């Protein structure tokens, strides 16, 4: 799978944006896109007014990387950003069939 091409998507709180971008550029990922999104958290009116809801605003960062680089990025997301703990973020890879540059 080392020669495969993967579409990597990371969804996390917006405060992680700069650090995640730094990581992706360090790992030489290509076609990095930043998309602002929101989470689907449900909150009551009073909790919302008091600001007691978990962060709703999210950022989705997508990029293209080779299979081994994508694997390394996922490992770094666990070790550096603690994505294995709840309420931090998620990441996934989708195999890319063909690529034209």
């Amino acid at each position, binding site marked *: 799978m080392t020669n495969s091409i*993967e579409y990597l*998507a990371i*969804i996390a709180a917006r405060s992680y944006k700069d650090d995640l971008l730094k990581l992706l550029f360090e790992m030489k990922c290509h076609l990095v896109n930043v*998309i*602002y*999104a*929101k*989470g*689907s*958290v449900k909150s009551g009116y009073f909790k919302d007014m008091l600001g007691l809801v978990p962060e709703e605003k*999210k950022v*989705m960062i997508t990029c293209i990387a080779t299979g081994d680089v*994508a*694997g390394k990025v*996922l490992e770094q*997301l*666990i070790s550096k950003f603690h*994505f*294995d703990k*709840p309420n*931090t*973020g*998620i*990441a*996934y*890879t*989708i*195999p890319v069939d063909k690529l034209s540059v």
Partner: protein
Amino acid sequence: MDTKMKALYIIVNVGFSEQVVEYIRSQGATGATIINARGINGIPKDILGISVDLEKEIVLTLIDSEKADKIMESIKQNPAFKSEAHGICFALPVDKTVGLN
């Protein structure tokens, strides 16, 4: 980390995303990410030189293959998706994931 999961993208007209999130939650999805988008159909609408695009929302969720198939089937059956929401749905195979508990 290798999974049998699918990244389910559901595109609906603006305002219908919460209904979709509620439905996919009832089907076993733990969460979803909502992205604002705009749709372009075959004939571009133009009023006084200003293009009018359709506001859309993309609901993205990571879910087991079987549950994804079930959701896609029920979306196909749901008449609301064909009329007001103008929903379309597609699933992509996910290779690896991080952060799903």
